[in-house]
């Protein structure tokens, strides 16, 4: 370790009975971009917070310039030029970008701010880094890409020379991601060091000089990106070789329509999902995904008021409420699993029962606990939910296992030719679980189910879909099909549609 390097050495951190970090070591070398990767619960966030002084480690050292430091805390971290950009923005939406950037490091003479000097400093920063934002706009009105620029400017403004970025690209469109990675490269060329925590390995390979892989709370490797590959990093992260599906291997039965969305006014918002077909909806979140899901689940009728309607298995849903739709042959994997999918306080077994048709049985009859416990246990085994304890409250399971529970419940409730509405089915889920969930969905499609897959991960859509539409500002673009030569989608065209660059969709009658 040389001057300017920072890092962790043999860090362990125990919370109560849970060991978040066992032995984490890595070095962020001066003037480099360093990737920190690992599955959920591998200890990424904890390590990051320890480096930034937010958490005191149980044992081990924070290393600055090659020497261990004592009593490391946020103040000291800031004083050594460390800046952190959290995954969720910490901007005040009602203030201007200018004020947000200055907030926390404002200097004032006798309580009077020198806005001109502030502005000069910010403008210099923007020129040097290429991070341009409209400074006089309220941040609440800015698009997400601009907000993340604001956050970085804020860190730089406070004098940070070393940045810790937590999942910085998770909310950006492919176009914005490229832009963002270029900015990171610029920052590196100016001597900044950057620690980037992410699960997108493609981005790691693109910008990082080094990558540290964590698994189960320990560093398993610190590698030069030049000498490694996505496959190797994946294997190190998961501990085994993954075989993620790359495309569906069957043709849909286009004669049998499962879902039909029609637009009685403008004829723009219309598509069908046929039996065996996986139709993807790409797009940055907040562009109408919730409204589309709500249209089918009858919980958000904004689209219906605009003249858009749904037919499920040929039946009009206009008169239906959520409950009657639920009695159809339909599985719903909601986008927000903890708010819409599960009741965290109830046990896994009880959650598996929620969607059951028996729920419509006599109100005051007893739940046959014994038989259900066995069937629940089988379901948990089949879907590889761990730990296999039906009595455990769902809140105690990890995100990936919660998602598998929803999938287990929902897929058990439909027949082979049913309809699956899956919104962000693998968000915040481990690679191992992603592999499992993708296989389950493809298996169902192959045996005849129609699937509408809403996702902001293009890689997910590319791996599963027959055709893809893009939602942009409540409008539908596409469809986009696989290139018959290499069976892949054109990510550039789809990426452009996601940012609104492509032509509006031609009318479909």
């Amino acid at each position, binding site marked *: 370790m040389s001057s300017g390097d920072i890092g962790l050495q043999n860090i362990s951190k125990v919370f109560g009975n849970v060991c978040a970090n066992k032995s984490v070591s890595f070095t962020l070398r001066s003037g480099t971009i360093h990737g920190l990767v690992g599955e959920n619960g591998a200890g990424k966030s904890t390590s990051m917070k320890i480096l930034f002084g937010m958490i005191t480690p149980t044992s081990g050292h924070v290393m600055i310039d090659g020497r261990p430091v004592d009593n490391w805390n946020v103040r000291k971290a800031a004083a050594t030029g460390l800046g952190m950009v959290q995954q969720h923005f910490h901007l005040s939406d009602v203030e201007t970008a200018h004020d947000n950037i200055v907030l926390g490091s404002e200097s004032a003479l006798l309580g009077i701010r020198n806005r001109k000097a502030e502005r000069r400093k910010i403008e210099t920063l923007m020129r040097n880094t290429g991070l341009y934002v409209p400074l006089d706009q309220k941040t609440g009105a800015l698009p997400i890409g601009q907000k993340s620029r604001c956050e970085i400017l804020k860190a730089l403004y406070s004098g940070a020379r070393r940045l810790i970025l937590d999942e910085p690209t998770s909310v950006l469109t492919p176009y914005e991601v490229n832009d963002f990675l270029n900015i990171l490269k610029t920052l590196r060329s100016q001597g900044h060091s950057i620690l980037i925590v992410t699960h997108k390995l493609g981005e790691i390979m693109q910008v990082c000089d080094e990558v540290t892989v964590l698994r189960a709370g320990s560093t398993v490797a610190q590698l030069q990106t030049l000498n490694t590959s996505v496959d190797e990093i994946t294997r190190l992260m998961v501990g085994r070789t993954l075989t993620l599906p790359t495309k569906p291997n069957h043709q849909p039965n286009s004669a049998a329509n499962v879902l039909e969305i029609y637009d009685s006014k403008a004829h723009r918002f219309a598509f069908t999902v046929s039996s065996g077909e996986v139709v993807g909806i790409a797009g940055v979140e907040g562009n109408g995904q919730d409204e589309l899901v709500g249209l089918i689940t009858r919980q958000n009728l904004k689209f219906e008021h605009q003249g858009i309607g749904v037919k499920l298995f040929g039946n009009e849903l206009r008169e239906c409420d*959520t409950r009657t739709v639920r009695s159809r042959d339909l599985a719903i994997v909601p986008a927000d699993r903890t708010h819409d999918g599960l*009741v965290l306080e*109830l046990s896994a077994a009880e959650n598996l029962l929620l969607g059951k048709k028996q729920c419509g049985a006599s*109100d*005051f009859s007893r739940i046959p*606990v014994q038989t259900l416990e066995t069937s629940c246990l089988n379901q948990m085994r089949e879907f590889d939910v761990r730990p296999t304890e039906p009595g455990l409250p769902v809140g105690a399971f990890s995100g990936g296992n919660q998602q598998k529970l929803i999938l287990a419940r929902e897929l058990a409730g439909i027949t082979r030719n049913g309809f699956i509405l899956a919104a962000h089915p693998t968000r915040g889920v481990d690679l191992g679980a992603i592999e499992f969930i993708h296989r389950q969905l493809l298996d169902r499609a192959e045996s005849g189910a129609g699937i509408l897959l809403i996702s902001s991960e293009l890689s997910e859509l590319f791996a599963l879909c027959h055709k893809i539409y893009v939602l942009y500002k409540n409008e539908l673009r596409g469809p986009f099909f696989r290139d018959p030569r290499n069976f892949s989608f054109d990510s550039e065209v789809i990426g452009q549609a996601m940012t609104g660059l492509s032509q509006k969709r031609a009318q479909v009658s």
Partner: protein
Amino acid sequence: MTSVKKYQESFFLTIGTLAVLSAIVLGIGDSPISVASVLLNSAFGSLENFSYTLFYSTPILLTACSVRLALAAGLFNIGAEGQMLIGALASVAFGLWFGPTLPVFVVIPSAIVFAMAAAAFWAGIAGWLRVRHGIHEVISTILLNFVALALVNWSVLEIFKNPENQSLETTWIAEGLRFGPLWKHATVFAPLAIGLAVLVHAVLTTTWFGLRVRSTGHNPRASELAGIAATKIRLKSLLIAGAIAGLAGVNEVFGHAYRLIDGFSPGYGFIGLSVALIARGSLPMLIAATLLFGALQKGALDLDLETERVTRDLAAVIQAVILLVLALQTRKKGGASS
């Protein structure tokens, strides 16, 4: 948290509570030990005294069951007091109207059903306001309590006033309709209340309806999306809760006073609310907390007579301190809900 730690914490909290209460009593100028012995003796000192404690515990347990059921559905039924008053008013009305003409075996069950239905209707107003107009039940039930109180007040004065008596009470119901005490001062509703507590608990924990209620209570959005009619479940729960609170009114009229005395309740509905919050879904805790608060009601009466300076108001102070300590404990655990 390990169980040893948990018990340790409970132990220290109990000691702390007692210390605070002792300090209060010392501050007033009495001996904590003599006050405690008065309270204990008054509540449990003899079978006679204990039966009084049961008498006070009965309406508390009924209203506690009411609050517990609504709470499981995610509704905060502060209106148990008002629902109980309406139940009492309906009982006495039915008894006075039909008691003289209809046979007893018809009047009693119909009066009970009528009282429960009236109380359920009262709760249903709050339920309807909640599901139709989004008015929070905490607000509406508090306000409905005042309306119920006023309604009882007016009815006692203007409709059912006992002409032979100066005090604010109705005419007595026919002798054949009086249940009479079951054992010393305890009414027939005492075992009934316990049975009901067990039944409510069993329904909530073992039936489909119970699962739906709990699911709705914890997460109405997910329940709705899973195909549960969350709104209906909430409304149903509140109606049943109201009916149960109404039974506390039946107990007062048919089991004890045989008339409706204006201001008979020392706030049973609110004490039941505290009990349900303390029990947090546990049946043994529900019964235990009911007995504790029932004992305090009984003990308070003798505090006026047998201690130097402390008055019956100390019982309310004790209740308040217990609730505060429990709130503190809940907060430390991260505010887990019922």
